[in-house]
């Protein structure tokens, strides 16, 4: 429009915040045209605001960063290191990785984490499914099929992270869950009718009362696309392949919806989180249905009956009471809302189906990732 002196940068091409440097990107969150410096500034400050508003850390805390080697956790490690130095959080940061045992996927991403360890000068601890549960994900998939892979992996990883942190004497794990993940979770909880999780789905810190380990999500309000841009401009070293075991089909539809919504209105990810934070369950109406007919007194024998859920878990006795935190699994001692924790139930199921005999040098258990990799390296 107004460019009296067309010698250098046009005024209209300047960053919308500093009006001094050339804009190089459109900010995914609000489509502002920004220069690199201003983008770093707003990106980091927003995360700093999120951390300080939620009072996530205290000086002297030892914090484990759940590091997969992917973009989210790599950027998380980088940003936390930056902020820790800039604002004197006084944190001791440690990288904590889980090795699920997916050949061709996790081994490569772990190599990235090992490089990050050197780049950020942070200690690294790797906990593997194999040493913890005596199963790798590849083995689980070859035994239980690919469809339920995420169920197993999710349940086992949750526990593995906790156990890894406990081993390091750390009571706070931060994960790279970003705003897109949060928005997707809000939608999924609505679509699946997960009433129990509806209210809690957007909380930044999650902790069970009996557990010493809390988890938090400093990237709760950070757009995935901005994480990608940050990693790109900062030239961060991350591993960008998706897990080869397919995500759940229904979640895929929600993800697709979110994508097209974001194209129409970029703020919608924040909007969904805002909505999610304001979803409150109505106080339960008490239904009093007094039973007159066929009313029998419970015999002692009946009182000793146990309810076995369809998935094989056993409910705790006090059935009428609300979900209570702090119960322990009878088998492994991990937190559980049932008598036996979900991980133990899943593992017990797997154990029953484990092949009794193995073939030497059997490569059939190696998952699709291995095969893809081998195929990639073929040449004619």
């Amino acid at each position, binding site marked *: *429009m*107004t*460019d*009296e*002196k067309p010698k*250098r*940068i046009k*005024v209209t091409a*300047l*960053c919308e*915040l*500093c*009006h*001094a*440097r050339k804009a190089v990107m459109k900010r995914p*969150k*609000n489509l502002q045209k920004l*220069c690199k410096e*201003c983008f*770093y*500034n*707003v990106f980091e*400050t*927003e995360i700093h*605001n*999120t951390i300080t*508003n939620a009072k996530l850390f205290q000086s002297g805390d030892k914090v484990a960063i759940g590091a997969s080697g992917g973009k989210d956790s790599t950027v998380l490690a980088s940003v936390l290191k930056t902020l820790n130095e800039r604002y004197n959080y006084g944190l001791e940061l440690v990288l904590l990785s889980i090795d699920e045992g997916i050949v061709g996927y996790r081994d490569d991403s772990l190599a990235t984490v090992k490089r990050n360890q050197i780049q950020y000068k942070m200690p690294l601890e790797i906990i593997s499914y194999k040493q913890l549960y005596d199963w790798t994900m590849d083995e689980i998939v070859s035994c239980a099929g690919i469809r339920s892979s995420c169920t197993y992996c999710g349940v086992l990883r949750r526990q593995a992270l906790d156990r890894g942190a406990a081993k390091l004497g750390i009571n706070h794990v931060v994960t790279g869950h970003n705003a897109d993940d949060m928005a997707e979770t*809000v*939608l999924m*909880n*609505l*679509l*699946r*009718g*997960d*009433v129990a999780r*509806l209210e809690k789905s957007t909380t930044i810190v999650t902790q069970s009362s009996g557990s010493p380990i809390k988890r938090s999500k400093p990237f709760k*309000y950070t757009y995935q696309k901005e994480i990608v841009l940050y990693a790109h401009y900062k030239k961060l070293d991350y591993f960008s392949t998706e897990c080869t075991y397919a995500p759940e089909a*229904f979640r895929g*539809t929600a993800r697709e*919806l979110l994508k*097209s*919504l974001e*194209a*129409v*209105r970029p*703020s*919608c990810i*924040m*909007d*969904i989180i*805002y*909505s*999610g934070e*304001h*979803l*409150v*369950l*109505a*106080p339960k109406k008490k239904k009093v249905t007094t039973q007159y007919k066929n009313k029998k007194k419970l015999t002692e024998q009946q009182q000793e009956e146990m309810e076995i859920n369809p998935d094989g878990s056993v409910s705790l006795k006090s059935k009428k009471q609300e979900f209570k935190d702090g119960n322990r699994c009878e088998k492994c001692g991990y937190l559980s809302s049932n008598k036996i924790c979900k991980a133990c139930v899943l593992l017990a199921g797997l154990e029953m189906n484990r092949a009794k005999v193995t073939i030497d040098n059997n490569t059939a258990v190696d998952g699709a990732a291995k095969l893809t990799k081998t195929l990639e390296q073929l040449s004619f």
Partner: protein
Amino acid sequence: MSENPAVTFLGSSDSDVAKCQRCKQENAVLITRKEPFCKACFIRFIRGKQRKQMQDDKYKVKYGALIEKLGTQRVLLALSGGESSLVLLDVMASLLQEQYEAHKGKQGFELVILNLNEFELNSLNKRISDILPELVKRYEPVPIHYKVLDLNSYILDDSILEKIILHDDFTGITLPYTAQTKYTLFDILKLCPNKSSIEDLLTIIYQDLIARTAYIEGCQTIIYGHSMTRIANEIIALTVKGRGSTIYQAIADHTIAYNDKELQILFPLRDVLYAEILAYAKLTGLDESVLVSTIPKSKINKNLTIRDLTTRYFSQLDATGYASTASTVVKTGEKLGAPKVDDNVGTVAHCQICGIEIYQDPGDWLRNITVNKAAPVETEQDHENLQLYKDSVGVSSQSTEVPHGNPLNICYGCIVTLGGVKQESGFIWPTNNTSPIATQQYIVDSDREKQRVLDEFVLTDDEGEDEGE
């Protein structure tokens, strides 16, 4: 592809296999909810869903003391001309017909149809005014009143318009709007930054116009034709628009206060799937009266609105065997309640755009996670650029001083809706639109038609004078 569609029509070939499970006589024409239905039983089944939702005594034919206690009940039916509202009209009219026959011409309530004229807005394929007389004739001898209202009547007069300016820090102000020209609704919609914003504002406008008409017409109840699928869609759309805190109200049968009156809002077809509504419309021949927009829906995501996208999502779920999702979402939405009031706000404020309660200052929330501060300017060249920018701004506009106005109460959803409105032009909106009014002008009014005939041909006492307008 469609392994488990919500409604399956049976062809003539397989009809000899399946008998209707209700009457066990007729051949089934379709399967829904895993049950084969014949035409009559299916229609009865759908009507039953509405009967169940409106069991209250006030909608029944009343005798004796109950007449005085409940008074004449008037029910306003919001009719867009789409399948759902046409089916609701048919269902309601059938209830009136049943009452008429069973109670020798008595009725439990009076039915008033309101259509907000979208002919221009959506380039509809036909005018509602051409269809309504025919439609109403279907249900004779039951009288049904109908009115068609111009969308522009939302703006009662220019004096209630205000100019709204939203700042970068998500606070807003209102300024008196000094009108030189008459401002129409379409002028306001033109200020919207995108289609989704227009959609949001139209929702606010429709709800207000419907409530206002119910108030003026003395209706105690407003009914919408929303199907279960539509309500599920609404829940997701509200969530996506940052209006999640209103779900608990918006989708439940609830009452609203309009001036000095209470209006009850009901969704009588909330237990009916959209696919079942389409089937009902097809079986009863109502589908021929459906008003359709002649503007084709774009194939490109970017040109669609948020509601378009969520609607498409649910229809895709229907087709891919996840049809039960709609009912899950509705059940989940029904369990929601009012959010807790933020201690910092103290009392609940009302949004001056859409009127909903504000529980937490949305500006605070946004400012924390959307920083608008620049990184320090360092190099000499940068300083030069900055000076260049300052010069150019100084020349092109002198709006450096911010005009002072009254602070604006605005909810999160409306901040999102108005986000992207140009700072210079601002936004024009009737911020105080609830002043009570006694009458309004309709484009078509069935009562007025009759009155016109009476006025013209019935002789009054002083018949010599010309009283007509």
